[in-house]
């Protein structure tokens, strides 16, 4: 399969093409950063996959490696200091890490697009939003300046920015936070990519606006049948839109589950802690649970299970042996599809 389809006016066929299997598959990905204080191991063997039309939520604290993984997929890691010593990132079955710079550039924006957290700083302050949107069409589809502007207005309309034609020449700082994030979304969706990576798309927004932006994103994803990787630290955001969840801690996936199962029955103490720290109306007056301690320093990840210093259930084995990602089963041994937990005591956690 070749990636170069410069002249395509019709959207590239969605779904399988020649390739069957997941749209994106990350296999045993490792990322490290060489800093003055030593080597920070940001990602330590992550595996996940996304299908077309599916939403994967990657959940974790800052420093858990969730954004770094996404940046590696996108090919926008700063290298150096970043390095990918090991792993594969398969897009439609092809390992992007083995592609040339030019091949990867053609995938970026066109087949895989990204939405960043802070739209104000992520948009160029001295170029009009119309120009920045139109750039996608000019660079990837060779449209003229005028055609690109018309397309830009169309995209702004599609993400429901009022008076798009009048505002196309405005600059990012002239928009409100929610409107700016819509522009980011419009830019990411401009070429109808196969996969969208949204890195905390609503964190910088007011709570009321968060829901609107999230709904818009979900709606457009359904319309275009795109894969979506939603990176967040907010369990509340995830519940409504995601199909499956991967919880990350210290550069590893510690639990994987379909979204509702995770909420009902977490199989990892870290996930459990996260869920318990959500304030609930029926527990009014009680003290709110908080996971004690702080995320680990990535240059000195604790031996054994990285979560052991903060884990209420930690035993000796947790301090010595790194737990593999176990498949999670019912008490009677029936397999729970799509579920896994990297805890030595997953049985006790989910069933106990």
């Amino acid at each position: 399969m070749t990636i170069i389809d410069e002249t395509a006016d019709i959207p590239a066929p969605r779904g399988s093409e020649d390739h069957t299997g997941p749209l994106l598959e990350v296999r045993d990905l490792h990322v490290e950063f060489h800093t003055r204080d030593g080597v920070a191991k940001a990602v330590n063997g992550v595996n996940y996959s996304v299908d077309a039309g599916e939403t994967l939520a990657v959940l974790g604290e800052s420093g858990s490696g969730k954004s770094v993984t996404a940046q590696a997929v996108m090919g926008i890691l700063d290298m150096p200091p970043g390095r990918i010593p090991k792993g594969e990132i398969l897009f439609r079955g092809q390992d992007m890490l083995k592609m040339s710079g030019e091949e990867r550039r053609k995938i970026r924006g066109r087949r895989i697009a990204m939405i960043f957290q802070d739209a104000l700083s992520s948009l160029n302050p001295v170029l009009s939003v119309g120009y920045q949107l139109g750039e996608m069409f000019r660079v990837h589809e060779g449209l003229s300046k005028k055609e690109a502007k018309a397309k830009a207005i169309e995209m702004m309309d599609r993400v429901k920015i009022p008076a798009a034609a009048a505002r196309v020449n405005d600059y990012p700082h002239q928009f409100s936070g929610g409107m700016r994030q819509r522009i980011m979304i419009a830019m990411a969706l401009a070429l109808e990519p196969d996969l969208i990576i949204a890195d905390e798309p609503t964190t910088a927004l007011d709570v009321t606006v968060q829901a609107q932006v999230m709904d818009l994103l979900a709606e457009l994803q359904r319309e275009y049948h795109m894969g979506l990787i939603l990176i967040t630290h907010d369990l509340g955001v995830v519940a409504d839109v995601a199909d499956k969840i991967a919880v990350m801690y210290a550069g590893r996936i510690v639990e994987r589950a379909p979204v509702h199962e995770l909420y009902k029955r977490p199989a990892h103490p870290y996930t459990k802690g996260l869920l318990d720290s959500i304030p609930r109306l029926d527990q009014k007056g009680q003290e709110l649970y908080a996971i004690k301690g702080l995320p680990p320093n990535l240059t000195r990840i604790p031996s054994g299970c990285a979560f052991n210093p903060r884990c209420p259930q930690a035993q000796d084995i947790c301090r010595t042996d790194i737990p593999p990602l176990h498949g999670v089963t019912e008490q009677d041994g029936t397999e729970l599809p799509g579920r896994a937990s990297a805890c030595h005591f997953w049985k006790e956690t989910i069933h106990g």
Partner: protein
Amino acid sequence: MPEKTAEKHVTDKAPAPGAVAEAGPAPAKARSLWSDAWHDLRRNPMFLVSSALIALLLVMTFAPGLFTSASPRDADLAEHYLQPPNWGHFFAPDWLGYDGQGRSIYARIVYGARASILVGVGVTVLVTILGTFIGMIAGYFGGWIDSLLSRLTDVFFGIPFLLGALVVLTTFENRTVWVVILALAFLGWTQIARVARGAVITVKQADYVVAAKALGASTGRILMKHILPNALAPIIVVATIALGGYIAAEATLSFLGVGLAEPAVSWGLDVSTGREQLRNAPFTLIIPSVMVSITVLSFLMFGDAVRNALDPKLR
């Protein structure tokens, strides 16, 4: 003045219910801006080299006798007229040769440090005091006081520094180091005033200043205890970097014949007398020139290092 529209980031970043705490790894120990800067400086080779050079220059300023027994004014035309340097004779009077009047260049270099250092440090101190005072008053009180002082700053800023110094200094018959210091300070305070004004306006709106005001602290106390210490970092950065410039200015003015005059000893003067010998004895001009450059370079490097340490944005 055009101003940047405040890039107001959305402040409502309070984690939503169910959010995982976004806490980074805890710093080993809470450190203040100043101790943090000191921590950085001690490991910066540029800082170490430049401070060593500056220390050497300071010793030369106050105890030139430690470096040479020769006098910078003893002229022996018959013996030493344009005698070339004797590179092997370290620290001897003939080490760096003799100038067109038969004076030891090495002795003149040692004694010339005084003029450069006194002018550089003196002007910087005066300019910092004057500029900080004017800038703080303008920034803190605002209103018509600010307008008046800002226009005054514009007026002085509108006069090119070198031109103004030339005009002021030519009117003085007897130009001592102190006259040069006062003249340069009179013209040079504007930059610090602008920086101080900006810093004060920023600090003034900080909550702790508002709180101090609400608790009834006096204006003087607020200025000295709360505003000055927090506006100090940018002022110090500008001042240390300007210091090298004042040393260069003194040398330039003395070279032009409107700075220090004989019998004062100044590197700028020596360059000026050396220029007649540029063709046949270039060392008489080159050695004092190099000395000026090294001195300015030391203070520039020092200022650069201080800025990098104090300006967290650059880390």
